[in-house]
């Protein structure tokens, strides 16, 4: 049996099982168990790829290539750590009465299904299934965001649904157009929407159709990436959902959406032989970096602030892929990985901090280091890492991006400097008093799950100083494939 089937099967089974048992106390552990299973399967899959190179499954409907193998592992991994984090977190939420058993059942079940949709989106070779999985991911996360049933969470979920629904619908139109272009080459019974087939013939695809298709796909999936000005759902959804959901939204879903954009970009570049896709990505990426940075400086809610930080980083990654070329692409891929790790770690720490303080308002969270030094250092180091302080991996990718931009797109560097500077000033000025100074926070009965925070930070640190050879190889191959 193919490990891939386990990677996809375990979360589905988990979703079903937890739909039945999710309200029990043991559900938290069952959730971790299924996530662990998924992660182990992903590890086996990774080992297979390391041993045997890229592979296909189920009549080429699924495939693993350098661009998605690390994302699959990353998704399974962050899925696991978030599940671990959500154990104590959800217990506290239940004790506070914010989560009732039915809600917990919904939460656990949807958590597994959400993992499934992301893994499906990553591993499928079919652009149509990719779309279906993205839409399904939207639907599951809508339920996750609204799980508290408060006015604010309903509003956030509604906006999320409508905005992303519309966005995704546009992506479907793009997919239809892609199909149209592919039919021109393969005929009605041809390779259909399989990406590998399309990539082989990308130079023969009709440029007119592909141009239009990319526009729709970019706007569609770009909405889910959170590119300004399509980002408006993102801060609300991050701020109002449960913190584990914010962590996976920022850490994983945005990556998956960007992954979809990248797949489309490869085809578009091949078909058009112009820099259209690159220019669009540079423009939107840069706009996102700058606008998100200015939004950052006016935030009061800690989760909302880090949501904007995700927009900023997604913008930076998009900018990097827009520049293209081996180094910028490499940096973009590295940034996706590290941002995912660090941002989820931050949300873990923030989750604990907010539970301790009983609020998400930053002004009411003060002096964490007194009460809970580990959470405080997790938040501090995580924030510094995400702001691009070495030796964390975010710095490594920003280093590559900025140095490349200086000679590739020198005009953009003042904007990047502005964006990064304002973002640093904004985030740091808010995190500093939260961590240090006199405290307002009361200790909590439950011990926080700090393993995920520090494992993530540790990995983020490692990627700044040492990139494992296989990961390096995948990055290089993927960067070559993405071209530029």
């Amino acid at each position: 049996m193919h490990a891939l089937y386990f990677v996809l099967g375990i979360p589905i089974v988990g979703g079903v099982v937890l739909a039945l048992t999710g309200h029990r106390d043991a559900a938290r552990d069952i959730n971790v168990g299924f996530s662990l299973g998924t992660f182990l399967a992903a590890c086996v899959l990774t080992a297979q790829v390391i041993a045997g190179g890229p592979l296909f499954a189920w009549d080429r409907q699924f495939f693993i290539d350098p661009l998605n193998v690390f994302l699959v592992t990353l998704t399974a991994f962050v899925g696991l750590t978030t599940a671990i984090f959500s154990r104590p977190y959800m217990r506290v939420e239940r004790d506070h009465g914010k989560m009732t058993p039915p809600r917990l059942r919904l939460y656990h079940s949807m958590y597994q299904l959400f993992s499934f949709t992301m893994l499906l989106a990553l591993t499928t070779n079919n652009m149509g299934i990719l779309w279906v999985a993205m839409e399904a991911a939207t639907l599951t996360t809508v339920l996750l965001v609204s799980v508290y049933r408060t006015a604010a969470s309903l509003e956030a979920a509604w906006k999320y649904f409508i905005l992303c629904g519309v966005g995704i619908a546009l992506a479907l139109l793009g997919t239809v157009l892609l199909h149209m272009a592919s039919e021109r080459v393969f005929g009605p019974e041809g390779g259909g929407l399989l990406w590998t087939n399309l990539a082989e013939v990308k130079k023969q695809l009709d440029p007119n159709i592909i141009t239009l298709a990319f526009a729709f796909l970019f706007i569609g999936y770009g909405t889910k990436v959170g590119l300004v000005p399509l980002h408006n759902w993102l801060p609300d959804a991050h701020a109002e959902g449960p913190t584990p959901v914010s962590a996976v939204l920022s850490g994983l879903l945005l990556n998956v959406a960007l992954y979809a954009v990248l797949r489309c970009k490869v085809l578009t570049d091949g078909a058009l032989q112009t820099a259209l896709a690159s220019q669009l990505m540079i423009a939107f990426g840069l706009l996102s970096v700058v606008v998100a940075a200015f939004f950052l400086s006016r935030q009061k809610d800690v989760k909302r602030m880090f949501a904007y930080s995700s927009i900023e980083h997604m913008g930076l990654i998009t900018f990097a892929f827009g520049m293209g070329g081996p180094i910028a692409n490499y940096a973009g891929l590295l940034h996706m990985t590290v941002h995912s790790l660090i941002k989820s770690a931050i949300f873990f720490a923030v989750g604990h901090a907010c539970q301790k303080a009983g609020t998400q308002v930053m002004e009411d969270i003060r002096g964490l280091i007194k009460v809970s030094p580990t959470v405080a250092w997790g938040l501090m180091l995580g924030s510094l890492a995400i702001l691009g302080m070495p030796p964390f991996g975010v710095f490594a990718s920003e280093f590559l991006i900025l140095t490349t931009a200086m000679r590739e797109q020198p005009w953009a560097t003042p904007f990047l400097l502005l964006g990064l500077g304002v973002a640093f000033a904004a985030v740091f000025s808010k995190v500093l008093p939260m961590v240090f100074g006199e405290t307002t926070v009361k200790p909590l009965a439950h011990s926080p799950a700090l393993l995920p925070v520090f494992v993530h930070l540790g990995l983020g640190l490692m990627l700044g100083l040492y990139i494992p050879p296989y990961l390096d190889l995948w990055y290089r191959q993927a960067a070559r494939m993405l071209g530029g």
Partner: protein
Amino acid sequence: MSALTNPSQWAHLDWLLAAVAAWLLVGTSGLFALRRLAFVARVLFPAGGAIALVVFGVALSAVFAPPEVATLPLGLPGLPFHLRLDGLSAFFLMVIAGASAGVSAFAAGYFRKGEGTPPGLLCMEYHVFLASMALVVLADDAYAFMVMWETMALSSFFLVIANHRIPEIRRAGYLYLLIAHIGAIGILLAFGVLQANTGDYTFANMRAQAHTPFWASVAFLLALFGFGAKAGLVPLHVWLPEAHPAAPSPVSALMSGVMLKTAVYGVLRVSFDLLHFQVWWWGVVLLALGLVTALFGVVFSAAQVDMKRLLAYSSIENIGLLFAGIGLAVLFSAYGMKPMAALALTAALYHVASHAFFKSLLFLGTGAVLHATGERSLGKLGGLIRYMPWVTWLTLFGALACAGLPPLGGFVSEWLLLQSFLFTPGLPSSFLNMLIPVVAALIALVAALSGYVMVKFFGVVFLGQPREEALAHAHDAGAWERLGMLWLVAGCVLLGLLPTQFIAVIDPVTRHLVGAGLGDTVAAAGWLLVPVAIERASYGPVIFLLGVAAGSAIAYLLVRALYHGRSRRSPAWDCGFPWQTARMQDTAEGFGQPIRQIFEPFFRMERELPLPSDSHPRYRVTIGDHFWHWIYLPIAAGVERLSKWIGLLQQGRIAVYLLYSFLTLVAVLLVVMR
């Protein structure tokens, strides 16, 4: 492999890496002894100091050795950390280690219970700080350099906010890290220019690139921005007087005395090593910025009433002098006048070393005072010479060196700097020739003002009557603290007395950077410091010292021999004024008043003058920084305004959000289908 296991075959770089590793090890041990102060203070900090001594020795011998390279198995794939030990790095490493050895010894006696951050953690941050400074000057590729550079900023940031419960300290730390980070992005962009799109970030590759003057200038300006932010060049200096005083004193000493030098190192590395040629106006820019900084620093320093802030501003002044020296070197170098460039560069490098020693010493002195009295404000100190004689006399050396007085270290560098100005009439541009006298005059003015500042600092803190009664309980520094200060005093004195020997150390560096050195001419003259020829200029500090000492001693002996040596003690006379209280002495504000008056436009003063009718008259004056109001506040306000406008984008209406998506779609469609 055998070379690695057998220390007798180790090259300099191996020793240095072992020392850096040992520092990190010491730091890590601190984490395991988080709250065991005695262990941290009596074992770990002295161990760190001992390692610093090893580094000092190795670096000193490495100055004369050929460059060595190494790579560490860290970093990005295809870009492991490249390290290179050449003359320039060895010189700076020597300065770093030399000053930090004394600071570490002092720190062993300094840290007490009850500060915000646990001592073990402080020890960790401190040693990471040391290690990162050492690696900054060793780094031979952009990535390693940036990682170490930011690690340095980060570790020192955490040290600054050691006492994080005070909001001002947090604010200082914030400002510090913010400007450091923005500066770091500037440096990063400079490296981005220098790598010239080759994707190879090693310095070796950057040296091999041929840049157009335009791109070279872009790189230079970006690097100047970045390193200037770290060095505290006006107008990027605002963090410095906040952050340096906020840190615990040994850390202030390291930051002011040592860390600032890494910025100087960076400027030298970029403008003389990584870039092949210099453009004359770079020198003018450096000179101008340096002078403005120096004058600004010293004038503000004179107006300060907090002893650590005073020293921090004095650091700004010294950095300004350093940059002026480098600017002159660039100017000469751009016109191919190598010996002159070497002279100016020697002056700058000499000042690097002497400033490292005397400023560290002064900060340690304030640390001891702070510990003994709990007071940083000059207005509440005084008369400590009677309670803390060790600290007083040791600090006096630092103050004299800082004031640029012969025969101590600070004077030699100023002397060399002024000498190099006297050679400027050789420059081929008459415009520059016009400029130089003004510049020299300003340098002389700054040097004289720093004497004023030091008299104020030393006199108000240590001399006169105690301004508070509690000062009578002040205790002198302990053995470790004295040891640390003594080491630094020795540095100041030796730097002052042995310029020829020390210039021999600088010689390889200037040869490497500008292709000429003073070593030969200086060595030929023996004990006299003769930069060019004995008819032109010479300075013999040993003879100088002996002359003054002999004059004093003979006078003393003769007076004793010819007359009686009787003394009587009585109350101070003070023109017969009967009620003498400590409050009748000049306050720090009063001592700075003439400077405030003369340089009034420099300050943004807010004064509250008492009315004649006040029964309890109080005079209050606050000194503000124009740059803060001219540059930083407008920027902050601009950002705030802009973010307010941008915030209007998001008003919560889903219809509007959909409209954004719609318009974006239409716009993109229009763009792609054009």
